[in-house]
């Protein structure tokens, strides 16, 4: 998957990774990798500024917390983040079903 194609949907994917509960940056990255069978290949260092931008937009809330002797910045969805995730999801479904209809597997015309 090209980095450019991924970047356009990064916000939505980050919000989706936080949907099931608060996580720190590296855990978000691991979810994106696992959920895409390793096809999500943006450098890990680009996740952190993106999360901070979502924080500034009010879509996530961040808090430093200590766990296992390591201080980590943990991100959590806000109500506004949940709404944005729903919107992104809806837009993506519309877009992808339109593209699938046009670009999906070729159906041979039925001959009788």
């Amino acid at each position, binding site marked *: 998957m090209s980095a450019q194609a991924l970047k356009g949907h990064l916000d939505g994917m980050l919000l989706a990774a936080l949907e099931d509960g608060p996580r*720190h*940056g*590296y*855990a978000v990255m*691991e979810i994106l990798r696992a959920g895409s069978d390793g096809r999500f290949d943006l*450098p*890990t*260092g*680009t996740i*952190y*500024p*993106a999360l*901070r*931008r979502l924080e*500034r*937009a*009010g879509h996530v809330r961040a808090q430093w917390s200590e766990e296992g002797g*390591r*201080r*980590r*910045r943990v991100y959590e969805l806000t109500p506004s983040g949940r709404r944005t995730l729903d919107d992104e999801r809806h837009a993506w479904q519309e877009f992808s079903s339109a593209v699938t209809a046009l670009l999906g597997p070729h159906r041979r015309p039925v001959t009788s």
Partner: protein
Amino acid sequence: MTGPGAVDEVIGAYLAEIATRLTGPARARRDILAELEAGLADASDAHRAAGLSAVQAARAAVAEFGGPERVAEGFHAELAAAQARRVVLPLVTAGPLIGGLWTVTAMGGRTVPPWQWAGTPAEARPVIVLAVLALAAAIAGALFTMATTGRLVGRLPGRPLVTAAIAAAGTAPIDLTLLALFAVQVAATPSRFAVFPAATAAAASLIRLAYAGRAVRTCLATRTLSRPGHS
């Protein structure tokens, strides 16, 4: 290279390379570096769990995070926003207070705006008008900065360091004008002003002048250092 010293060296050198490319408020930079450090430790753990040695895992973590220029560049917009907010916030907070102090000073029991103060030369009037226009630009710059660096991020195109510099610089003409008019007045009729609000208003304007000068320099320096290609 083996052992924990070598691991710290790999991670430390990488973080140091990023640190030299970050500009903006020191606290925000420290916060970013601390978060990256924890992330690199998590990444190293993951690579060790996959069977790499400590040093190999640290190197793999650094490779996974991406080049220091690229990582630092990713934070530029965030740091610019943090710097702009830091510059503008004191102006927004203190602005109405300084305005109020001067209003109390000018009134001094009578309702007389500064351009009608006895002894104010007629030529001062256009200067006051220009200063008020500059102040209006400053207020607009401050509000725009707060909006584009806050919730409206991404919805409105913003140049936070430019609008923050306008917010700071725009306060200078009104402060200079008021201080000059005030000095003329005090020299002519010293007893005209109540000492406390007058002295406080003048001091506040002097402080804001100094602050504005420093703020503009900070904004311009952050902007220059965060341009792509600069390292």
